[in-house]
């Protein structure tokens, strides 16, 4: 497995206010696949994603990514892990407002000795014409495309997407998801998408449903519906 999680536990708070967010999650994701992590608000799906991304430190359990245990790593080692392997896409894009589109992407290009061709990437993602604009001059969809370009430019093996279409209308969402589909196909990137939308899991190879910090159900889709054909986004 490219991602192997075993007995993952994460608590927030202390004493009486202690809340167990992840209650011993164990699962695996194959390399080059797309996986949807689905669940209602407060189910722990984002915390699960951030534990895999090394943004949250689990209280116990194991997370092995591409053969590397990351659960007990120190901050500097986690930083190296994110640098080498990860790309992040957030719900609210989180672009640097003072940087142009090109510069926002360049932020990550410097992190790898073998970045993707930026010009080509921008063209692929349809933001080439806006490269010298600032984020505030772009629509939500264009900003999210920029965020994806930023995550992809360093050619990560694992792309973590936290509600990537949560702030977008259905038409734009469809475009973004189609893009992720293409990225997975073109670059072989393993993609984890956290969502509470019921339609998105129809386009991913694997679906993990989380409820109250536990996996309530997980399955592989035998038939994938292309993103462009998804309804109720």
């Amino acid at each position: 497995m490219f991602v192997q999680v075993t007995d993952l536990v994460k608590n927030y708070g202390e004493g009486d206010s202690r809340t167990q967010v992840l209650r011993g999650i164990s699962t695996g994701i194959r390399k080059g696949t797309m996986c949807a992590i689905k669940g209602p608000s407060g189910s722990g799906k984002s915390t699960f994603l951030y534990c895999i991304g090394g943004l949250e430190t689990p209280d116990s359990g194991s997370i092995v990514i591409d053969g590397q245990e990351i659960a007990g790593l120190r901050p500097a080692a986690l930083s190296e892990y994110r640098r080498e392997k990860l790309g992040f896409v957030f719900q609210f894009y989180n672009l640097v407002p003072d940087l142009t589109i090109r510069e926002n992407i360049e932020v990550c290009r410097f992190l790898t000795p073998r970045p993707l061709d930026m010009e080509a990437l921008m063209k692929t993602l349809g933001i080439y014409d806006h490269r010298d604009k600032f984020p505030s001059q772009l629509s939500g969809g264009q900003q999210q495309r920029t965020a994806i370009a930023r995550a992809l430019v360093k050619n990560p093996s694992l792309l973590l997407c936290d509600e990537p279409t949560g702030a977008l209308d259905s038409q734009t969402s469809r475009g973004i998801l189609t893009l992720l589909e293409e990225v997975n196909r073109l670059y072989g990137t393993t993609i984890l998408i956290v969502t509470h939308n019921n339609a998105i899991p129809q386009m991913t190879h694997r679906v993990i449903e989380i409820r109250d910090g536990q996996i309530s159900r997980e399955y592989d889709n035998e038939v994938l519906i292309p993103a462009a054909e998804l309804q109720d986004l």
Partner: protein
Amino acid sequence: MQKILWHRIPRDLRKGAFRYAALSLLVILSVYMVISLICSAESIIRGVHMHAEENLVEDGQFETFVELTEEEQAQIRENGVTLEAQFYLDFPAQVTAQAAGEQQGEKDTEAPAGDLMRLRVFRVRREADLAEFVHGAEPVQKGEIALERRFAEVNGLVTGSRISVGGTAFTVTGICTTPDYDNPVENMADSSVDSRHFGTAFVTDEQYAELKASGGALRAETFLYAFRLPEEGMDLHGLRALLESFPFEADAVKDPYFQAYRKEQLGDARVLRDLLESPLFSGERYDDMRSRLEPDIHNLQSFVSAEDNIRIGGSAADMYVNLYSSLVAGVIIIALFAYVLAVFTLHQIDDASAVIGALYSLGVTRRDLTIHYAILPTLITAASGIVGTIAGFAPFGAHYQMMDSYNYYSVPEIAPMVLPYIVVYGAVLPPLIAAAVNVLVVRKHLSRTALSLLRRERKTRRLKALRMRRLGFIGRFRVRQMLRETRGVLTVLAGLYITLMLVFIGLDCDVMCRHLRQSSREDTRFSYMYLYKYPEQKVPEGGEAAYALSLHKERFGYDLDVTLLGIDPETRYFDAHVRTDHNAQRVVSVSSAMAQKYGLSVGGEVTLVDEENNRLYAFEIGEIVQYAPAFYVFMDIDAMRDLLGAEEDYYNVVFSDQPLDIDPGRLFSTVSYSSITRAGDIFIELMQSMIVTMVVLSAFIFVVVLYLMLGVMIDHSAYDISMMKIFGYRGGEIRKLYVNGNILMVAAGTLLIIPLAKKSIDALYPLFISNVACAMDLSMPWWYFALIYAVILALCLVITLLMNRRIGKVSPAEVLKDRE
């Protein structure tokens, strides 16, 4: 609403405890410094004036060739004038023994070989310029003496010490100050006090008579009278006119040198005058002829009002500079700190942007929030201001600052004065400034819409990307980061400007003193300058004659002495090339000291005032001559004699490179090479603590401001730094992007700020030393600036390293806050 918001204040305080504590410390330190300087200045100014009034300070003094007659004195007193004869004699002195068990004193008591210790001995005064005793009491019998405070302190003398004056042994009964020697210079022309070698002393009438009879005085007795004018009636001009109207019997002058001088002045006419003295020629007609043959001399030798007397109130005059500069500096520094506090508040507002947006949406007004956010900085400044003010008034505050005056001037013990306006300045003004600055800044920042705040929208500064392409990504990123943090960087640079001004106040003083010392050594080519009271007809062998006339020139309200010096065109002692042609009386050479002080240049005009004779002299400046120790206007001696109507061989100054055999009774004073060069050493000694204090204080302020502001910048960028960490940026890379750019901007700004601060202080410096008659060469060698720059960069480097820890503390999870 305010009541509820009040609950947040202690929480905010706890959250930013370190920052607020550091800034509070700075405010306390600054207010302490400023209040202690203002309080010490006010205490000296008012205290010296108060003590002077209590001790019946004179309104003026005059010297006569012969004692005034009883009738003349009565005539003066009839006009309501209080007159006291304060005749004096100068004696060589030697410390013979310390008081038993006493080890008081600043230095060892033995003067270097060749340096003569001189005491100016007066009779105990009763009607003007009374002595105020710091220790002991006035002498009441023979063998007892009271000494001026500074002379006693510097030479380790206390009550009970033994001292030999003119060969007579004395026991010190008291240490005192007198208002007429507040600035205890030996001669009115001296530029600095030298208490190690000169002081005043007081003995009984009987003892004075004995000393006078002993013949051990260095020169003839000086007939000095101090006077106090009535509130109405007789004024300075009236008294002077009265004194000049008194008949003068030159024959009555006992001083043999005066008589010799008079005879020399008479020259060939003396034979005729002696003939007219015979009984054959009596009657008014012959009296008139006799008086016509007399040189134009009247009994009044000099007349100086208290206002023009540099010895009176010198300590207070020095303090005005401290007072005004401290008042202004205090406001500037407090405004800077208030702004730094405001920047902290803005950072808090940015942090709480969504909450503020929500409160706006719920109907909370901008006024409510503005007041809320301005309260904490105002309270912190108020508390710090009060603590700083109390510290300023404490013994380690004002009293400590007053030590500079105590260690130079001969002032009585003065208690620091707690004046209401100083209390208001220290305790009320800082919070007022803080409140005003914070309300202004915060109000503007809170004037965004509720939606904008809710969305945490950040104002972007759009620099056209195309224009910056050549910079490369890292360069562009840094530029944008710098622009984003412009406010912080400008605050750092403003702080740097203020701290560098403090540095240059100290360093200007340092270089000025060093230049003065160096130039004094290089420019002074004579070993002795003899100032004559009664010049001999023939210039002593080995000497070079000159003609000096003391005039005045005003600068920033201070009338400083300038000497018009007639010199030999072939002089060995100055570089002046005085004109000897028909322009010799019109075109003059000016000493570099004077040119620097008054901003004079070749081709310009210099005007000098002869206050005694109510004349004004205007000259064209032909050249600036390198001479730092004194303010001289040089001209050809013959031209000067002609200009002033003096005899064609008249002189009153002799320069020499070796000691000359001149009777001391003929002289006003002798200025030696060592006394001139010592002036520079004394200045440096006096100013050293101030220089060090200024430099250390400013470095401290700079470090704290830079550290705090870089911290704010990092906190401001915490979200972006967190993003960078998520992308996998390392600490060093993040520092490069977020800190180094700001440091670069500080480094670049410093290149501009250093000369700007130097220029600013150079422009203000003449005001600071407006009452000091010395050269003002403030030029610094390049390595001073290089050193300052290197120190600033080193401090930046240290702070950058410290910032690594802060960057390390920014969690990648910061990004998740928005989502959660």
